[in-house]
């Protein structure tokens, strides 16, 4: 079956521009996570969606970052007024609620802010 997909796979943008990153989770997975991985670092939690509950936004680094999940499926992570330090790989993962630790990751979006 289809895994988690993300688009675009690569994005180059200029400082100050807005970007939108998309995540399509595995069908039936109610939990969806966004992470950021800077060069040589582990994964940094950004935001978590579970069903229709309010998302856990505790990992978002600034108010320039926001995310939404429409219809309990596709999610979009938006970064406004991008900065060079936003350059990283953005990974999305989904899971079933009951087995939330076993997360299935997408291939990521590599963002480069010039």
């Amino acid at each position, binding site marked *: 079956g289809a895994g988690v997909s993300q688009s675009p796979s690569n994005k180059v943008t200029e400082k100050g521009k807005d970007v939108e990153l998309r995540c399509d989770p595995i069908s039936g997975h109610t939990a969806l996570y966004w992470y950021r991985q800077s060069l040589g670092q*582990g994964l940094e939690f950004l935001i978590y969606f579970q069903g229709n509950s309010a998302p*856990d936004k505790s*990992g978002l680094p600034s108010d320039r970052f926001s995310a939404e999940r429409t219809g309990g499926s596709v999610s979009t992570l938006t970064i406004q007024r991008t900065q060079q330090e936003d350059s990283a*790989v953005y990974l999305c993962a989904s899971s079933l609620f009951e087995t939330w*630790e076993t997360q299935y*990751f997408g291939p990521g979006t590599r963002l480069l802010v010039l």
Partner: protein
Amino acid sequence: EDKVVQSPLSLVVHEGDTVTLNCSYEVTNFRSLLWYKQEKKAPTFLFMLTSSGIEKKSGRLSSILDKKELSSILNITATQTGDSAIYLCAVGIIQGAQKLVFGQGTRLTINP
């Protein structure tokens, strides 16, 4: 602040060697410890260890959780070049919402 620390950060060995990767944690509301393998971009799940399952084995890979020492090890025996990857340790916590806290990873390189 919840923290997961892995060591070494980088390891280079020859094919056939046995390696041990380390993970220590300091978190509140511990629920589980997980190991993921990251070859390109997408991490893939290896093991989950909990209080009721402190040892797991799959082929040449095995892992143990030491809840007293707040640590875990991942062993790989008879390493192959295909084992080259970044190995990520994560701790599952529940603080209101549930989430994984990741370590910085160990980059393992297996030379033929």
